[in-house]
Each structure stands twice: as structure tokens, then as C-alpha cells.
């Protein structure tokens, strides 16, 4: 080929490439701001986009995921107790009766809880003639305990008498559950549990109707659907999957056809449940007539669609891309279409108490001083995305008792990137046994090449580099191994891997609005597991456990006593107890570096009105959103 032609072709190809990759410009059409204070209008279909499907195909005993929890609470399932779908200023984290007539009665020894059910509430089609009764709740808990179902959070119900025996095959019934009549449920416990009410607001306790062909079947309509009950779900909330009326439970499970309105990994279509009676439900207004959910796509493409109005909102665990956060926050027309609300979730970096140098509390405190939390947050998108965290449990869960508690504060929370912050870190490190000459910089070989796991997304990599830079200043060098999110979790889930450090990609989101859901899975010694262990720091591990997992360090700090003290308490006393536990954690155990209390950022299309944020679910309340007609 002629030389000139070759140069020209290459230039043209490059130019075409640049144009192709340039991407379309934003729409930014006529954004009509939703008039605040105007009554929301009923009707219309919500267009929702999700990046991925839910994790267990909508099986209520298996799902342990924020997105499915949202659909259950707002729309599909009612439980004995539930939430009002609003933010914390409007009692969004308070329990209210839903299927129950009122709050449960608790015996004086705190071991017997009695619920009374509302009468005349019926299931969605095809069971519209069947009334919801107490045995239906018991049926759900039996399914939760059934080993072949492999439920997501069975451990919350071990406190019910006979539950774990049934789950282990040692008993034929769960002795702690009984229904003296169709509208009374009596729950007997093995020990007091002040937060039991919350556990009966979880979707696993939503009623399961009896099977029409076999009324004695223990699992009711879920019989034969150990792996796919979600596709045969009988709803009780204001919405149901489209086509539910065609579910046929009179034939054997293998011959039943799954509901048409749920196509796994592709789409959901939710329509109004004709059996739902608004006069029995003051927790859910249910303005829209239907919801169309499309699964799949790229975050930035979906954000563009929201801006253009093709999609009403992206409903997933992700945040909009920083460029869209910037655009919506700085463009006058778009300012009222972006909503930033606090979640009850955090992000933190972890240190393994069993791997040197983190077996020394002074090193752990020094690291807390050294990390540049503001920089970490900026890389992730800046102040819009989170509050800087000074302790473990999000403030709203502790009634703001620890709002100003930041024991390792540095100027601007910039850690070792400021001279004062670096000094604080060095002073702490100088007291450690691994700083042999007391100059504030670790000089022991254990501080070199500390085994670290990081997430491999670009943001997480940059955040890991920042932390690496910070820790280098106090003599700790990190040996960073990067993986995808799920692979990274896989590494830290196994205590035998001896992962010493994680760089802030791991976080925790409450299961229900009580700090038990933070401390129990993450900081409680007896809950350390061989697999899927979420106590990455090994807090409270016994010497036997440490030896079992191959650690040479066998004595690690514990806070089991501080945690167990709170189990039976209720009300303000319980919250104060958790706040004390958080302080104990930060001053005496120091297994983590708290980084962020994250915000939820959602952008919506211009036709959405009545934005409401669910403090229970840390996301939009789909049953409150309305469409401007």
C-alpha cells in the first residue's frame, strides 16, 4: 500500500474510534420540577432499571439482599410488623403493626411473645379466597428452618425454642411456635431477645398459604419449590407479579408454570394486587398502577437514560457515576431530581488481629490516625457520597449518641497527608513493640509486605493506592492483591487465608434498624465461621479457634461480654448499651478503621413526584413515588 494512503487510513481509523467512543451527549430535556406539597397523583407505570437481578430469584426465605428486601417491604409481602417506608425524621426505622393488630405482648420473663393478627386479609390471586392466618406465619418459619431450602439468615431465629433442633433434624416440630387459634401466634424463646420484633418484620416471616391440593403439607404452596419458590410467590402486599392469577397450585410442583411477570435476569412486571385493601394498610400508599423493571446495562448508560427520561430511576446498590452526580447537583434544572440521603451502612478497612503487626494495638491505632479518610471519600465521588465515619455503627442507629465521637480524628480527616495527622500516627506507632528505635516508623520485618486484599474496580484501586501511600509513611508496606468484588469476599471469608488487611471496599449494611445486626455477624467471637466468616478481624476468637485456623498468635481481644450485655435490653437502654459497645470497640479492640457512613444517591427522571426515602431499606420507597400526569 502506498505510504500516504497508509498514514491516511490510520488517521481516519483513529478519528472514527474517537468519535465512536465519544458517546452521546446528555439529553437534559424539559425538566419539570415536581411541585412540593402538591398531592401525588395515582396511576401510571414506573420504568425502573436494575444493573443485575436479585440474588436468589425472589425466594423470601433465601433472599438476603437490599434490592429484594425493598420490593418485599414496599410492594409484594406483608409481615406481622413492618415499616412506614419513610425517612428517619418520619419514624422510618420504627416498627409498626402490619398484619398484626398491634405491637406484640411480651411476658414478664421476656421469653413469650404473643401476636394477634388482623382478620379478613386475603392473599393475592390465585389465592384471593384464602385468608391470611397465624399458621401461615408458622409455615414460613418452618420453611426457614428446612435444611434443603438453605435459608439466608436462619441464625436470627435460633432463639426460638426448637428452631435449631428442627433445622438439625433432631426434632420433628418447632416447639416454640404455636397458634392457639387462627389469629393468634405465640412464640417461645430460649433466651430474652429485645429485638425479636425486628426479626418478625423480615421477609422470611411473610405468610405462606396452605396448598389447595394438600392442606397438611408442611410447606404449603412452596412444597416442591425448594429452589424456585420466588417464581411461584403468592403476594400479600399492594402489588404482585403480573400473571399471578395463572399460577396453578392444584397440580404437582414440577408441572406448575412459573409466573409470567418475573423473567429471571431480564425483567419484572408488577401490577396491583386486587386483594389488597388499603383500609387495612396504613404503611403503603401505592400510587403507581404498575412497575416495569428492566435488568442489565451499564451504570453510565442508564444514568443517561434517566436524564433523558427513558428510565425513571436506577434501583440498585450502585450510585450514579460521579460525572452525573456533578451534573445533577450543579445544573439548576436537574437539582431537584437528585436525592442524597444517609444510609445505615458503612465502609471500613479491616485489620486481622491474628497477623502481625496488627496484633499490636498501638499499630492499629496508628493506622487509624494515618489513613486519609477525606481523600478516600473524594476518590469515591466526594462529600455527596458519604459522611466520614469516626466509629463503627452509623449514628442514626445509635440515636446520634456518638455523633461527635471520633477518637482518631486528624485535621480535615486527612490522616498522614497532613503534618499533624502524620505526627499523631507516629506518636502512636512509637509506642509499639514493632518500632524498635521509637521514631514513629515501623522497622520490624513484619511491617513489610503485609498481605492485603483489594477490589479491582478503578475507584477501589485508587483508594487502595492512597491507603498504601499513607501507611508507607509509618513504615508499613502493603502487598496488595486485587480481585473482583465476589472473589475478594471469598478470600476474606476464609479465616485460614490469614488476610491481614482490606482496603475499605468491604462494608456493612444493617439487616434491620438495630445495632445487633452490626455487632453479631462482624464482632462476635462465637459467630466466627469456617466458611462465609464475616468477622474478618477475628475479634473474640478463642485460642482454640486461632490454633484451628493456623495462626501463631492465639490471644486476641474480645468484646463478647459487651455485646451479650445488650441482647435482652429494649428501648433507650438498648441503644445506650450499643453505643457503649461501639466506644469499647474503638478504644480497646480497634480491629477496623471506620471510613465512611455512606449516603444513598438516586437520580430520577423529571416526571417523578413525591420522592420518599425509606430509612428501613436505605433506598427509594417505590410505593410512595408518583408520576406527574
Amino acid at each position, binding site marked *: 500500500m502506498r*505510504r500516504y494512503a497508509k*498514514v491516511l487510513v490510520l488517521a481516519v481509523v483513529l478519528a472514527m474510534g474517537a468519535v465512536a467512543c465519544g458517546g452521546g451527549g446528555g439529553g437534559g430535556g424539559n425538566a419539570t420540577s415536581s411541585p412540593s406539597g402538591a398531592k401525588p397523583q395515582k396511576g401510571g407505570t414506573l420504568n425502573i432499571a436494575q444493573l443485575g437481578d436479585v440474588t436468589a430469584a425472589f425466594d423470601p426465605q433465601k433472599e438476603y439482599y437490599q434490592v429484594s428486601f425493598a420490593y418485599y417491604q414496599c410492594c409484594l409481602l406483608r409481615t406481622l410488623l413492618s415499616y412506614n417506608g419513610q425517612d428517619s425524621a418520619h419514624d422510618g426505622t420504627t416498627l409498626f403493626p402490619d398484619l398484626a393488630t398491634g405491637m406484640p405482648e411480651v411476658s414478664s420473663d421476656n421469653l413469650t411473645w404473643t401476636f394477634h393478627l388482623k382478620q379478613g386479609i386475603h392473599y393475592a390471586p390465585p389465592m384471593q379466597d384464602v385468608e391470611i392466618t397465624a399458621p401461615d406465619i408458622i409455615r414460613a418459619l418452618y420453611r426457614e428452618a428446612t435444611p434443603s431450602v438453605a435459608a439466608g439468615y436462619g441464625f436470627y431465629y435460633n432463639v426460638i425454642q426448637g428452631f435449631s433442633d428442627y433445622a438439625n433434624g433432631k426434632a420433628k416440630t418447632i416447639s416454640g411456635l404455636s397458634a392457639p387459634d387462627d389469629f393468634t401466634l405465640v412464640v417461645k424463646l430460649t433466651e430474652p431477645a429485645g429485638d425479636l420484633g425486628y426479626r418478625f418484620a423480615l421477609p422470611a416471616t411473610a405468610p405462606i398459604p396452605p396448598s389447595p391440593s394438600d392442606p397438611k403439607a408442611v410447606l404449603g404452596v412452596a412444597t416442591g419449590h425448594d429452589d424456585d419458590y420466588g417464581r411461584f410467590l403468592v403476594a400479600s402486599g399492594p402489588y404482585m407479579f403480573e400473571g399471578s392469577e395463572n399460577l396453578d397450585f392444584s397440580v404437582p410442583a414440577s408441572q406448575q408454570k412459573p409466573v409470567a411477570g418475573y423473567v429471571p435476569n431480564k425483567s419484572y412486571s408488577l401490577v396491583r394486587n386486587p386483594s389488597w385493601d388499603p383500609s387495612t394498610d396504613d404503611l403503603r400508599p401505592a400510587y403507581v398502577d404498575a412497575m416495569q423493571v428492566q435488568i442489565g446495562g451499564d451504570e*453510565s448508560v442508564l444514568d443517561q437514560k434517566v436524564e433523558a427520561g427513558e428510565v425513571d430511576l436506577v434501583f440498585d446498590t450502585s450510585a450514579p457515576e460521579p*460525572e452525573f452526580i456533578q451534573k445533577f447537583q450543579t445544573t439548576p434544572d436537574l437539582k431537584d431530581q437528585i436525592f442524597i440521603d444517609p444510609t445505615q451502612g458503612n465502609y471500613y478497612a479491616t485489620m486481622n488481629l491474628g497477623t502481625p503487626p496488627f496484633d499490636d494495638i498501638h499499630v492499629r491505632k496508628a493506622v487509624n490516625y494515618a489513613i486519609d479518610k477525606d481523600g478516600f471519600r*473524594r476518590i469515591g465521588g466526594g462529600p455527596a457520597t458519604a459522611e466520614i465515619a469516626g466509629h463503627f455503627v452509623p449514628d442514626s442507629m445509635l440515636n446520634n449518641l456518638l455523633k461527635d465521637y471520633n477518637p482518631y480524628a486528624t485535621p480535615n480527616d486527612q490522616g498522614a497527608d497532613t503534618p499533624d495527622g502524620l505526627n499523631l500516627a507516629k506518636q502512636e506507632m512509637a509506642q509499639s513493640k514493632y518500632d524498635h528505635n521509637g521514631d514513629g516508623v515501623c522497622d520490624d520485618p513484619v511491617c513489610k509486605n503485609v498481605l492485603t486484599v483489594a477490589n479491582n474496580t*478503578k475507584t477501589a484501586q485508587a483508594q487502595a493506592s492512597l491507603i498504601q501511600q499513607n501507611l508507607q509513611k509509618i513504615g508499613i508496606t502493603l*502487598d496488595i492483591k486485587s480481585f473482583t468484588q465476589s472473589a475478594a469476599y471469598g478470600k476474606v471469608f476464609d479465616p485460614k487465608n490469614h488476610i491481614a488487611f482490606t482496603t475499605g471496599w468491604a462494608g456493612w449494611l444493617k439487616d434491620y434498624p438495630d445495632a445487633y445486626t452490626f455487632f453479631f455477624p462482624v464482632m462476635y467471637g462465637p459467630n466466627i465461621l469456617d466458611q462465609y466468616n464475616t468477622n474478618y478481624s477475628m475479634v473474640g476468637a478463642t485460642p482454640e479457634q486461632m490454633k484451628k485456623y493456623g495462626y501463631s498468635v492465639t490471644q486476641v481481644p474480645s468484646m463478647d461480654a459487651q455485646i451479650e450485655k445488650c441482647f435482652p435490653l429494649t428501648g433507650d437502654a438498648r441503644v445506650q448499651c450499643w453505643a457503649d459497645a461501639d466506644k469499647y470497640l474503638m478504644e480497646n479492640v480497634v480491629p477496623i478503621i471506620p471510613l465512611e457512613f455512606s449516603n444513598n444517591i438516586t437520580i430520577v427522571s423529571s416526571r417523578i413526584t413525591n420522592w420518599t426515602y425509606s430509612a428501613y431499606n436505605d433506598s427509594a420507597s417505590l410505593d410512595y413515588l408518583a408520576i406527574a400526569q
Partner: protein
Amino acid sequence: MAQTSATEQAVQPASTAPPGGEAPQQIVGRSPWDIFWGRFRQDKFAIGGLVFIAFLIVLALVAPLISKYVVHHGPNQLFVFTELNEFGLPKGPNGHFWFGADTSGRDLFVQVLYGARTSLIVAFLATGMAMVIGVIMGVVAGFYRGKIDTFVSRLIDVVLSLPVLLLALGLVSACGLQNKGCLGGLIRPGLLLVSMVIGLFSWPYIARIVRGQVLSLREKEFVEAARAMGAGDGTIMLREILPNIVAPIIVYTTLIIPSNVIFEATLSFLGIGVPASTPSWGRQLSDASNAFSYAWWTMVFPGLFLFGTTLAFNLVGDGLRDAFDPRGFVRTYKQKEKRKSRRKEARVAPEAAS
């Protein structure tokens, strides 16, 4: 470009003497190097490419000096507060960051300079490896023929038909991501592994060309003559054959450099190339792919450098090929016979020189 016949090569056009004037000038015979350089020099694009490559090599060599004395920071240092705005988005080219910041707040200018080092090191290492292996295999196969040739030719076929990217992905994933590497630490993550992988996939191109050349060269009379004088196989390969295939080796080696540069960039783009702490244009482009709409500089600068480097090597390679022999190296059998005698004359010069 018009073809020149072989006889023209040896003779410079004599200057026309004025009628009845001075004696005609001496006709000076040109050495092959003169011939080659004369032709190469006339190819403006190739010279341009050469200049760019030289410039790039200089840049790559002085990158650490620039980093230390001119900008005072390395390629991996994060400047989160000065170079990212409050939404975490990078700032563009300005007084102290000449190419702007990348999406993590690093100096893109220093990243691009160090990326040049990576690309050149990998390209030269990988290509060097490919050249050495390819020449050895090609010479041995072409010289001995028979079973050895069959074996080597089939090996070439197999390597050429391997799904290169998939295998590279697998090899680097298996050995490149754990610290302990593979084969008891023999294959460790880093520039060396990537270079080895690339070199292992590109030697067949050289080997094939060399083999073809050697096949025809071994029939030459000078080879017979050398054998008659008692030279062994090794001596013949080394002293008779090798010097005569230097030209195609140089040309084709140069021509596979750009594809090796792109190969390294591709591996890094996919996240399986050089480690994250080693800057690479490919990874810079990968980081920039989402950011292009609000940070054009993150894609433009690494992209321009990668494009320029590839183009420059291609132009130089083309120029070399045209300069060594404008008719190219591919011969049909008939042409071979026709040019046998002419080539005998042309080959006498380098032989006399060796």
C-alpha cells in the same frame, strides 16, 4: 516507485561532461550499505518515523530524571486534593500537570513517559526473544530440511493457530497475579512475564521468513564451495547463510515491533498485562474508556503516543524493506531462476566483505 534493475545498483550515473571539456569522472562503486542508506534516506516518512523513535527512546531514558528533577513526583503518586475536584473528577491540563490528571489523581504526563519505557522495554525484549528463537528455528529448519524441517514447520503452524489472546490471558492470570508465580517462582508477575509471553507468540513470523530464505540460500554455489573447503554445518550456517539473511531479519523484526507494542497494550487494557504499579499506555487507555466524556485528556495523550509509536515503527519497517530491496523478498520459482545470475553478482559484494 519504478523498479531499478540490478545493474543500476553498482553504478552511479556519471555526470555528463561538457562537450570537449574535462576528462569523464571516475565511476565509484557503491557498497551495499551506501545503496541501502541512499534509498532509505529518500523515504521521508521512514526518516520521520526514525526521528520519532529516537525521540521516544530519549524520553523513556530520561523519564526518571524528569520525574525527579522537573516535576518532583513519580508516576504513581496520588494528588487527590489538588487534581480531583470535589466530586472526585480529574482536572485537565494545567500549569503543573501538563497532560492533566488521570481518574485517580496521578500526573498523566509522568504516567505517559513511564508508559513509553514499558512499551519500549516490552517491545524490544519480546521482539529480541522472538528474533533469536525465530532465527535459530528458521535457519535450522531451512538448512537441514527433512524431519527437522517438518517438525519445526508444524510447530510454527501450531503456534500460529493458537488463540493468542486467550492463552496469554490464561498464562498471565495463572502466573501473573500471585506473588509466587508458576514453576516454582520461575515465571513471576511483571514485565518479564509479559515480554516472554509476547515473544513466545511472535517468533513464528520470523522463523517462517528465515526458513524460506535459508531454503534458497543453501542451494547456492558459495555454500557448495564452503562445504568443499571442509566447512562444517555450523560454520556454514553461521558464516555463509546468516550474513545473507541479515536484511530480511532486520526488516521483519522491525515490522513485528508495533504489533508487540499493541499486544502489550491489549494485555494491559484487559488488566492482565504488566502489574498495576508499572505504568502502561494500554492500562491508561482502559482507565480512560469510561472517563472520555468528561476527561478527554486521559484518553487522548496515551492514545496519541501509542498511535505515534506504532505508526513510526511501521513506517521505519516499510522503509527498511524498500531500501534493502525494492522488489521485495517474495519470489516465485520462475523469478528465482531468472534472477539467479543477477543475484550472484549482487551477493559477491557482501561475501567479499565477510
